[in-house]
């Protein structure tokens, strides 16, 4: 059954139709990639799903619930986590604190309990730390646990952002160009992690990506968009062989 249903989604900024009539659905446990040339509207689709933007028309359903009217801060609680193309982290905090902030929606204790540090708070805190340590181990971030984000290399910050998304404990994770700016080795790690997320953690992955080798390696289905409109949907091979996609994205005759 489909976890995420996007139906006839559109957003217009003045006269610019950034996204115009995009529909797709992502099945539970699927890795679904959105590809397209720069400015095709891929990140805008992410911003619409994560409720940063309000669509001009169309609906977004998650887990059977219409979330089109939800606020950006409601999304984490529903079980949707995301990363950003330009990395949005808490720069003046440590890696550990960034990941712990991912547990925000799971903190059920109130203000007075927090201040008094009651046993319930301590129990919860231990559980949050255990979950975060699992993420640190999974992404091999042990060496950076106590480091400030601001001083870390780009590739590590990119991984920390994935870590924070995992710390949220989501059902669906949106990865916005997880391989951009990464070396070949780092990209290979990302590919393994995505497979593990699906296989071991039972996550559904929706990603925007330019690196076609990564897309080919991990995705079940691909949606190609250009100028805010859908071009083709299918397996990675089908989509890349589609004549419209070749024309719009790769140039005629080229294949990645």
């Amino acid at each position, binding site marked *: 059954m489909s976890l995420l249903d996007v139906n006839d989604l559109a957003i217009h900024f003045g006269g610019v139709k950034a996204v115009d009539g995009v529909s797709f659905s992502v099945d539970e446990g699927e890795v679904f990639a959105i590809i397209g040339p720069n400015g095709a509207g891929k990140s805008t689709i992410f911003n619409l799903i994560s409720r940063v933007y309000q669509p001009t028309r169309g609906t977004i359903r998650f887990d059977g619930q219409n979330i089109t009217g939800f*606020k950006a801060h409601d999304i984490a609680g529903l079980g949707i986590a995301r990363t950003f193309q330009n990395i949005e982290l808490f720069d003046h905090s440590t890696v550990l604190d960034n990941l712990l*902030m991912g547990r*925000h*929606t799971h903190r059920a204790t109130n203000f007075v309990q927090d*201040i008094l540090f009651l046993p319930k708070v301590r129990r919860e805190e231990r559980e949050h730390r255990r979950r975060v340590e699992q993420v640190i181990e999974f992404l091999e971030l042990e060496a950076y646990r106590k480091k400030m984000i601001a001083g870390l290399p780009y590739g590590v910050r990119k991984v920390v952002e994935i870590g924070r998304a995992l710390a949220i404990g989501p059902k669906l994770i949106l990865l916005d160009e997880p391989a951009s700016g990464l070396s070949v080795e780092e990209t290979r790690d990302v590919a393994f992690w995505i497979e593990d997320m699906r296989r071991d953690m039972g996550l559904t992955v929706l990603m925007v990506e330019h690196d076609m080798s990564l897309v080919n390696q991990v995705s079940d289905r691909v949606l190609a968009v250009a100028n805010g409109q859908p071009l083709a949907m299918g397996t990675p091979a089908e989509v890349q062989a589609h004549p419209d996609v070749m024309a719009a994205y790769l140039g005629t005759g080229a294949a990645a």
Partner: protein
Amino acid sequence: MELLQLVIGGLANGCIYGLVALGFVMIYKSSEGVNFAQGDMMMLGAFIALGFGNTDQMGLPFGLAVMCAMVLMFGISWGVERVVVRQIFGQPQFALVILTIALGFVFRFVAGSIWGYTPLVLETPFAGQNLRGGGIVISLADLVTIGVTLVLTVALWAFFAFTKIGLAAQAASQNQMAAYIVGVPVMRVNSLIWGLSGAVATVAGVLYATRGAIDPNIGLLGIKAFAAAVIGGLGSLPGALLGGLIIGVIEPVAGRYAPGELAKMSPYIIMLIVLVTRPGGLFSQIQMKKV
């Protein structure tokens, strides 16, 4: 002995600067903006407490009057954020500076039109009581001021360091987009912090009023408190208190031992020295900002 006497009075004064500075830091911590109406919020809080407590006004018992004033100021500040400040969300920092300076004028006018411009005295249970020992006289008001300030600073520090809302506020100040995505209702948290800073300002105002008469212009003390917050490093609560104490102590000491008008300039001279030598403030923000 004389010096010790000056220092004790200075510490109590410094606590008031520190408390107003705490308000600056709280709002800075949650929205990376400076609220220049902080001093006027202190003034308004003091007058509201006076309105609830003084016998010729509503005549409530002192403690109850202060509580009522804190609650009302929480509401007013919360409402100001909701209705006014939120309109400029996402605008350059400068917009907030101008807006809060204007808000300060509005608060002064409101207080002036309700309570007038002649100085009024807040009736407190510890007026005129002194403790003596070893040749030093300490007024009860000074002791209460120092005690309340310490308790409040620790409580606020714990609030930002340990509570869900406090951590959310710090997260929002570092990166709003990231805060949204982990589930922080950034706008709602901002309103709450404004409300809280209004309540803290009220405590500062009441303590100020225990030490002398108040009029609608006492909010100008906010400028000195801002210097205190800058000395401490705008993002640090203990730093704000320390900055306040430094200014509070330097003023009377300079007034006694230094020539002429140096005492009045001393807070700003210290601020300049700190800015030149440690631009991040005594407690640099990077070090203090932990989520």
